[in-house]
């Protein structure tokens, strides 16, 4: 039995390898795929990306394990894994990967009505329809459940009014999955999960300029927006449970990111020089770089270990602790990189700084978000203390 499976897997692997080789555009090898997830314009103005997206959509391998009626290929987890491995082996990426496949898709599969699944999943499966997440509000950051965006039952439709913030890519999105308040008398128990067409009248998305110069995040205003009754996912006032589940998927995909581990040592030798013993000529910086690099190694070993230990594909154990380790290590690394670049690591623009220097500066500024978004450092510590360590409230 196991042997048969093994043979079947091997033959599927060969098939996948051949198809990917024939269809993945070589120009995209080792391309910054996450960039295409967050920047629709960059993706859609790249002809090879469009071609690759279309081929994968037709092959249905962007979401290989989804059922065929929802746009997937109906394959097993094992097959899906093989596709991912073969894709990685040639420096490729999945052009269908999006907030839709990572967050909304799994959630709809679990909580959506049959109608909702048929309406939305096929467009996620082809990455034609981009989604954004309307959760946070100006007064509801870490305390998400205190959100105030009103949603009133008008009989034949919902009427939505309020403001969201930190909505990634809202200005490029077609649809938004949002948390709205359908009952003001209860906190968590008064929240519903709603799908909103961004083209609806009364929706406005305004990009926010971040300290890194990025304008990826938006404020979204809902001014008396009419939403069809059928766009509510699950039951009225039961959106909190759905949101928590979705946030687990988000945390999973965050902790999934294998941070680059390009060693900083060669750069440090270049910028700081080398002492007579061959060491980076800045003892204090060197000591901190070594400690960070060792933690980074141990962190990657931890990701591998927990992945091996995880029995099922569901959200794992200790994810909150992992996220705090990750954000801390990556933030320290970003600080160390600009520090070793010295005065050259502080430029915003202009030819007096190299591309790599300017990128390091922006990446450092961007990294400050890692301990804020997706559940702040403090919230993650609360979760670890309460859920994992079972300390009392």
């Amino acid at each position, binding site marked *: 039995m196991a042997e048969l499976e093994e043979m079947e897997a091997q033959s599927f692997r060969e098939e996948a390898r051949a198809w990917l080789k024939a269809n993945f555009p070589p120009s995209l090898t080792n391309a910054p795929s996450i960039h295409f997830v967050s920047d629709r314009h960059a993706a859609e103005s790249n002809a090879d990306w469009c071609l690759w997206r279309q081929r994968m959509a037709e092959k249905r391998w962007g979401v290989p394990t989804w059922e065929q009626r929802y746009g997937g290929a109906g394959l097993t987890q094992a097959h899906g894994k093989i596709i991912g491995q073969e894709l990685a082996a040639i420096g490729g990426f999945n052009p269908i990967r999006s907030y839709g496949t990572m967050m909304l898709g799994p959630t709809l599969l679990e909580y959506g009505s049959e109608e909702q699944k048929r309406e939305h999943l096929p467009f996620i499966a082809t990455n034609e329809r981009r989604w954004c997440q309307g959760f*946070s509000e100006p*007064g509801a*950051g*870490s*305390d998400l459940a*205190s959100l105030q965006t009103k949603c009133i039952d008008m009989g034949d439709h919902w009427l939505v009014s309020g403001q969201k*913030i*930190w909505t990634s890519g809202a200005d490029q999105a077609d649809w938004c999955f949002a948390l709205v308040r359908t009952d003001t008398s209860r906190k968590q128990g008064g929240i519903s999960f709603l799908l909103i067409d961004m083209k609806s009248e009364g929706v406005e998305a305004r990009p*926010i*300029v*971040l*300290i*890194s*110069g990025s304008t990826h995040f938006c404020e979204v205003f809902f001014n008396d927006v009419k939403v069809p009754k059928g766009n509510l996912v699950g039951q009225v006032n039961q959106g909190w449970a759905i949101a928590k589940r979705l946030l687990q998927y988000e945390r999973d995909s965050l902790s999934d990111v294998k941070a680059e581990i390009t060693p900083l040592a060669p750069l440090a030798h270049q*910028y*700081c*020089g080398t002492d007579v013993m061959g060491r980076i000529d*800045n*003892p*204090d*910086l060197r000591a*901190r770089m070594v400690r960070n690099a060792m933690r980074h190694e141990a962190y990657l070993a931890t990701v591998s270990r927990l992945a091996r230990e995880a029995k099922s594909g569901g959200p794992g154990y200790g994810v909150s602790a992992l996220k705090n380790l990750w954000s801390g290590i990556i933030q320290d690394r970003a*600080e160390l990189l*600009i*520090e070793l*670049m*010295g*005065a*050259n*690591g*502080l*430029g*915003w*623009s*202009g030819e*007096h*700084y190299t591309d790599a220097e300017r990128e390091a*500066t922006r990446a450092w*500024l961007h990294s*400050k*978000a890692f*301990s*804020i*978004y997706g559940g*702040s*450092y*403090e919230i993650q*510590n609360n979760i670890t203390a309460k859920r994992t360590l079972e300390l009392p409230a």
Partner: protein
Amino acid sequence: MLNEEQRMLKDMAAEWVHDRLPVTALRSFYGHDGGGRPDAEGFDPEAWAEMAQMGWAGILVPEAHGGSDFGYRGMGLVLEELGRTLGTSPLLSSGLVAASALRLGGTEAQQARWLPGIADGSAIGTLAAEEGAQHGREDVALAATAAGGGWVLNGVKRPVQDGMAATFAIVTARTGGAPGDRDGITLFLVEGGASGLSREALDQIDARRPAFFRFDNVAVGADAVLGEAGKGADLLDRLFDLAAVGIAAEMLGNACQAFDTTLDYLKTRVQFGAIIGSFQALQHRAAEMFGELQLARSAVEAALDAIDADDTALPALASLAKATVGETLHGISSQMVQLHGGIGMTHEHDAGLYLKRARVAAQCYGSTAWHRERWARLNGY
């Protein structure tokens, strides 16, 4: 402890800075995307004229040359207040570094030529002594060749603080030896308009726009030498130490205000039905930051007093001050962003401005790591 005059100066500075150079003043030097505005000089000439009029530019200039000779502790008080609001001006470059250079190494003619202008703000001096990414006092490569009784300079300097607006610069050049040698370093006084000197602004994250100087056969006279030719290393060390203490005072102001702003936010922001400053984890973090600020203040004030007392321990105390406040400001400016959450990540909020200035200041005149190593060597570690 401040004396009566110092306390008055501090109060006056606090009030003027608050009114005239609030954080919004710095914001006007930023472009919409968060970079420096290409047309901005990095400071407000009118505000600078007012500062000079109040006598701040001349705090370290002898009375005979139009200054008040008020001492470094007094200068530190003004810099600290400017640091609170990230107020920009050439005060440190000109009023502290260039004025000190002339006092310590200038001939009577040089002093008479430049000190009155420094004091009344009409002249802006600066130090052009860095060439590489990392601070290296002896890593001077810019070449000065003797020619016709004077010298010809070739090479580059970067970053030159306030270099775009500078009337003159104290330039380090190599008249002998090789980069890394202490011998053979000479300090020259070079006018901004010198033929063959070109300047370009560096677009830095703090919107200050220091300069890139290129020297292409810049000819200067023998009287441009500051101090003794080839023996400038000691004077340069002294100037860098004074500059480090000066910027440490400014950084102390940065850190104090970053802390105060964050503390205010902790006292007002509500999450989970409670003021977030009531959460013990944040309270303890605030308490620890408060403790670090105590260390930073003590180190900075001790260094300022050491200059005024002509204490021979200044090199170690300067490094202690720069490194201590550097570490403190690093931590507090990072926490300022973290504790403000999402809003702290936006260009619209002040937190990012403090964060950016903190990293630039940390690199100026020797980084935290550089000064730690320097302190370690001085103390036999």
